[in-house]
């Protein structure tokens, strides 16, 4: 596993924390879209923008719609060669 891959979980944590304005302690694979007030459709778009910037990718619309939890987000990012 490369150095950047080792850092990917931390980078993802930072993106979620900043775009949803929540503490890192609140973030785990089971955290779901719309399960907390901060992860609404507005924040989801900011999250997508930050994910794309952080990992230098452009997500498909279907993947944006499917990104229903942190765990699911990791699965989707693997399709874009972002390993965890």
């Amino acid at each position, binding site marked *: 596993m490369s150095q950047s891959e080792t850092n990917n979980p931390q980078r993802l944590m930072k993106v979620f924390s900043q775009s949803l304005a929540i503490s890192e302690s609140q973030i785990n694979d089971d955290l779901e879209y719309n399960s907390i007030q901060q992860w609404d459709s*507005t924040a989801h*778009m*900011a999250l*997508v*923008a*930050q994910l*794309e*910037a952080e990992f*230098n990718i*452009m997500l*498909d*619309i279907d993947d944006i719609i499917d990104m229903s939890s942190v765990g699911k987000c990791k699965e989707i990012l693997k399709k874009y060669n972002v390993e965890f």
Partner: protein
Amino acid sequence: MLNFKLDQSLQLGGKKAIITGASQGIGAAMAKAFARAGVNLVLIARTEAKLQELVQELQLIYDRELQQNGEKEPDDYTSKLSFFAVDLTDEGAVKKIFSDIATLGGVDILINNAGKMTPKPLAFIKSEDIQSQFEINTFAVIRCCQYASRLMIRNGGGSIINISSMLGEYGQQGQSIYSASKAAVSGLTRSLAQELASYQIRVNSIAPGIINTPLISTLSNAEKEQILARIALQRLGKPEEVANTCLFLASDWSSYITGQVIDVDGGVHF
């Protein structure tokens, strides 16, 4: 044409704008106006040869601008000017363009100008006529807004300008599908303005009237005369007059304007 001082006071220099349907007519006029204002451009159109012709004209404009600022001409224009010859109905190609733009630092201004007009009476409209006009006039606009807005969020905001049409506001005999596809753009504009405001992205639309462009050649003389009779200024509009409105909406001069459809039609009355 705006004078040099006015172009500079728009404070758009160094911003990056995407213009679709850029190779001719209103799109080309916009590209020239934005180049004079020092904006870095990404031009999109179907025909590469026409884009290359325009790019040569734009390089001269950039050179003139730099000379007036006492700066040296660049060795190449890749940071100021790039173009993509693609069909905007090709979803994969659109995504690829925006991926490339992301690596170039994103975008501040999106002008959805590409359009298609196929006038036909209702009885003669085929499914493909509906599909082809909505694909470019409406669906491609939505896709470009989706991708561009994500890049604008990264940069802390931006301005989206959708080129609608007078026909989308008032309608016209034989133009039902074109009118419907452009009316959809007005609805899209008003809704996206609400949805994207929190990201500091303004979304506005320009509804040009009869502008002297190649697209107008598809109208019959009878249709043109019928419309001219209803224009208060009694003349066709110039592409530059739409481009100037576009500059205004792209700049901070319009910083408190969003969700508006601005008619640039010489005072059409029905």
